[in-house]
Structures are given as structure tokens and as C-alpha cells.
């Protein structure tokens, strides 16, 4: 399956070639958590993701054409 991935702030460097936006070919049924771990993100650090425009759960499964956006949790300021 092909998935669009946008990674912001401190997460950008983990995206393909350090790009902000990339398209990735992935094995089917991968979860959000598994993808991030494969990319080397320390998933114990706080992060949030939006999968197809909704706050994602780490266990959510990606599917062909999914748009996943990963970013630090919003707080304060």
C-alpha cells in the first residue's frame, strides 16, 4: 500500500530523506505505532498523529491512500 506521511517539528528528520512530506510504500495493515517505530521515532516521547483528518490511536491501521500527519502534542503558550 502507498501512504502519505507528513512529519512536523522534531519528527521531520525521521521521514523519508528527512522530508516534511513523503509517500511511502508499506506492507499492508501496518499500525501507526509500528510505522513510527520502523522509522526510528522514540514512541515513548509524546507525539500525536492525525490519520485521515482525525486524532489517531497508535493501534490504528494504515491503509492504501491514507494520510498520516505526525506532530508534537499541542500544549500551552
Amino acid at each position: 500500500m502507498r501512504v502519505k506521511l507528513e512529519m512536523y517539528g522534531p519528527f521531520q528528520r525521521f521521514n523519508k530523506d528527512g522530508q516534511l512530506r513523503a509517500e511511502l510504500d508499506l506492507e499492508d495493515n501496518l499500525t501507526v505505532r509500528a510505522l513510527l517505530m520502523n522509522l526510528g521515532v522514540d514512541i515513548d516521547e509524546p507525539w500525536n498523529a492525525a490519520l485521515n483528518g482525525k486524532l489517531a490511536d497508535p493501534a490504528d491501521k494504515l491503509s492504501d491512500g491514507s494520510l498520516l500527519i505526525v506532530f508534537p502534542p499541542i500544549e500551552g503558550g
Partner: protein
Amino acid sequence: MVKGLANKILRVDLSDSRIWTEEQNENFYRRYLGGAGILAYYLLKELKPRADALSPGNVLVFAPGPVTGTAMPGASRLCVGAKSPLSGGIAKCEAGGFFGYELKRAGFDALVVQGKAAHPVYLWINNGEVEIKDATHLWGRNVLETQDVIESELGEKRLRTATIGPAGENLAAISCIMTDVRNAAARGGLGAVMGSKNLKCVAVKGKTMPQAADPEKYRDMARWMNTNYMNFGSAARFHDLGTGADMVGGNAIGNLPVRNWSGGQFDDVAKIDAAALRDSYRISMEACPGCQIRCKKVVELENELYKVDPRNGGPEYETLAGFGSFMGINDLAAICRANELCGLNSLDTISASGTIAFAMECFEKGMLTLEDTGGIDLRFGNVDAMLKVIELIARREGIGDVLADGSRKAAERIGRGAEELSMQVKGVEFGMHDPRLKQGLGLIYAVAANGADHMTGAHDTLFTQEGRGMEGVRSLGSLDPLPAGDLSTAKVDRAKNLHLSRNFGDSLVMCHFTPWTLRQQVDILRALTGWDYTDFEALRQGERVATLARVFNLREGLTAADDQLPKRFFSPAPEGALKGTAIDPEAMRRAKRTFYTLMGWDPVTGIPTQEKLEELGIAWAAAESVPE
């Protein structure tokens, strides 16, 4: 004498130019600590019930905390508060920069100002010596000019100041107090309180370093944070980008407020976030004393219309969103200018942007006309209108006069159904986070004594999944991640405990961006004072502060009916990630009831019970707890 403290509180009555100091015993400090604790204590003790917020009877408190003035990262802040002209209840803010640090080093745990001077004055606190000085020549000047003039007439460089500009002088209920020109004690209209006292500025210089009971341990802890902060994702992010690094993501999940919450998606978000700012007008990052995180942006720019001076700092997230997506504006230079204009005039950027966005929606819906606005085309997205209206508010001219006391008062004046568009709780405009997404924060927005303030509650999205975010709540007894939109008893309990730990932090006063755990904060306090202080006392301190603030609000006439979110959040979001999502009114009603119960307050009226007051050692407040 308590180690680490100044053990002295400075009192000033401007009506008769009286200056004196007060000493409190050790139990007082252990019971109220500092910051928000000392603020609540003095407001209840010294303000006559129902005194007008803009009368000489109001009491303005500048309270650093026990840790303030030391070289501990995050320990430079102070709490500022009074009775709020915006809400009629308590106004409580924390401000960064060097002012609090310097006030403590000048030898005071707090400054309590009452009365009203016969003419404009400023206070000059020079390492224990205090003078009231004429400020007639400063009245009408902006914050930066005031700083410059005072520095030159006192012959002092690097003075630390708390100052108001024209908005405070003109008693705008959305005005703030600026510390060191570019930081704000923002919420609740404190600038107007200072203005009503004819107090233009408090200037401070201090040299006395507080001494810790266990200096070695204290130094070690400071060193530990300064060595390790980059290992914390949140602190590393604040170091790189400051606040507002997460706006694109916030837009993707529906947190970003758009057009006074009439929208739900902002396509130009990447043009106005902290990364866009880094790549354009940001010239450096600044720190509060002792803190390596250096999260404060400094911007500089010049175009054909205006110049933004780096001495006025730069916009935080609330300001980027408030003058950006919340008004449908994608012009980053104009947002930087709006931030500067607010600072120079001493306007709270959150309430100012919230009120202008409200007016824009009124205008689009025909509740305000060109005639009302004096010919200003006050449409969403109109940058010139935004900048113009900020200045009108500060001067209270034309439409600015209608808006200067916030959106709730403005809606009363406008009528025509405008109150439905006023997005505030207790008159205090919202922080820029959608409570339909973060419903635990929504509950705190509703019940917090100081209104819809974004720093009093923690953000649900930090605790929706396993990982380090959960570490912060596990020690509070919350073991499982919970969805952001959940309002179960477990969520209410978590929101309440985080609210209490924040109230403890605001008593220390510690910056919420330095990644100290509650346990570490307790260890810092132990090393500083030599007390055998415990986590138990810390949470109890948070509870005491929240309860005293509640008692104060009740006494001043607020009730449980004021713990109410605007109707808009109970109807489905029209677009974006939250499309179709609303807060369930029944779930929120239950959550409030649960919150009151868990706090030991009456489940219906929210009045703290006698037993709770006694348990917290504040039985004296009982006389104040029932409204007349």
C-alpha cells in the same frame, strides 16, 4: 526564618503613600508557599467583599514564589493577581522574564499594593529600599518608552519592570501588565487594575541571592536539568521552536481555532506557525534567568507599513493562532505587528484577539455595521482592520471603546444576539485550544476560577497513548490512557489532579514548560527550605489554592452558573477534523458535578464544604465562603 525565602512582604498603600513590610511565620509560608497561594490569601483577607475591581479597594499582588530568584531552571516567574475587572472574580497570571526574579532578590516574597495615588506614580524598589515617584510625565507613553525613560532618569541599566501602556491607563478590561517589556501577566484585566491605581510601573533592582538550606543538592538539581533538558521531547521542541511548533498538526486534528470558532480548518496554517516564523522574522531565542531551554522568540522586521522592534519580543502560540487562524489571517508579519502593538499598549493578546475575532463575526453576520465600526470593514481576514482596531481599543475610541472590556461586555452593548458569538467563560476569552477536542481541558476552562485560561488545565492529547506523557499522570494515580473526548470520572479525576499540580506549580512559582516532575519540584522545595515537604502536601497546596480562589469568586458573587462553556461548543463543529463533534451537555454537567464532589465542594452549588476548608487549614475562609 525560612531558608530560601526573603521572609518579608512589601505593602504599599498608594492613597496615603504608606510603605511598610510585614513578616509572616513559618506556618504561613508552608501553608501558602508563594505565588498563587499568597495571592489568594491576600485577596480574601484584604479586599473588602464586593469592592469594585477598579476602585482603590482592589488589591494588586505581585508574588514570586519560594524558588524564584534562585538559579533553578524554570524558577524565575511570578504570579500577579487582583480582583478581575473582566470576570468580577479572581485574576491570576504567571509572567516570565526577570521581574519576579529581581523582586525576590530585592528582598521580598511579595508586593501587595492597595489604594489609589492622587496622580500617576511609579514604584522604585532598589534592593530593599522603596520609593514612590512621580510618573505624570510617563502617562500616555507606551511600555517600551516608559522603560527607557525610567532607566535613564534613575541612571540604571537593565532595570526590571512591570508596566502598563495606554490600554491599562484607559482601564480596558482586556489590558495586561507587561514584565520587562515583552512578557505579560496577561489574563483578566490586570493592566486596568494597575491603571485604576494611577500606578504606571514598578521598577526593581535586587542583589540578594536567596540561600538554600542544602545548597549542594540545590545546585546539583539545577545542573541536572540544564544537562538533560534536551532529552525531553517537549523541552527540546520549545528550545528549537518555542510554542506554536505544532499548529499544522493542531489543524489536522481540529485543535486550531478558526474564525471565532465558526470554522474548523485553516488551510494556510503552515504560513503562521513557529517554523514559518523561524524561517522568516525570528532573529533569536531568549531565556528566563537560569533556564537553558530558551523558548522565547524574538522577531524583527520592517516593511513599507511598519517596523517590529526586537525589544518587544515575539508572538507565542496563543498570539499566532489568535491573530492568525482565529481571524482568518495568514499574514505572519501582521501577526508579529499585532503582538507588538498589544505589548506596547499592554493588551492581553488572547482577550484582544478573541474580542476582535468576535467583532469580525458580528460584522460578517450584520450585527455590527460600517456605521458601528466607523467605516472599518471588519471582515475576517482583513489585516488592516485588525491592526487599526487594536489601537482603537487601547485608546478606547469608536468601536475600540465598545470592545475594550472584552467580548461579553461588548455583546451586551451590541445586543442583536451577539452574546451567542462571545467565546468566553466568566468573561475571560478562551485559550486557543478547542474544548470539543480536549474535553478534560474544556471542563477546566469551565470550572477554573480565573476563566477560560489555557495554562490552568493540562491538555488531554498528552495522555491519549502510552509513553512519556503518561508518566506525568501515573504518579497522580491515573494509570490508563484516555481518549481526548472522554469525560468519564477517571478523566475528571485526572483533570482535577493535574489542575491541582498546576496550582502547586503556580505557588512555587515554576514554569510549566520546564519538564520537572511533581516529585522533583517537591525535592527542589525540600533542598531550598530544609522542610520535609511531601508530594501529599504539594497536591494539598494545589487544592488549597483552587479552593481559596473558589471561595473568593463565590464571595464576589459568582456562582456555579458561571462555570459554563459557550453554547457553540455543544453544537457540532461545522468543518475540519472535528466536523460533527460536539460536547455532550449531559456529560459536561455530570463532569462538573463530579469535579465539585472530588474537590470537596457541594456537588450542586460548588461551595466548598466546611470540612474541606478545615481539612485544608483554611477554616478562616468559611466566613467568606457563602455568598450574601
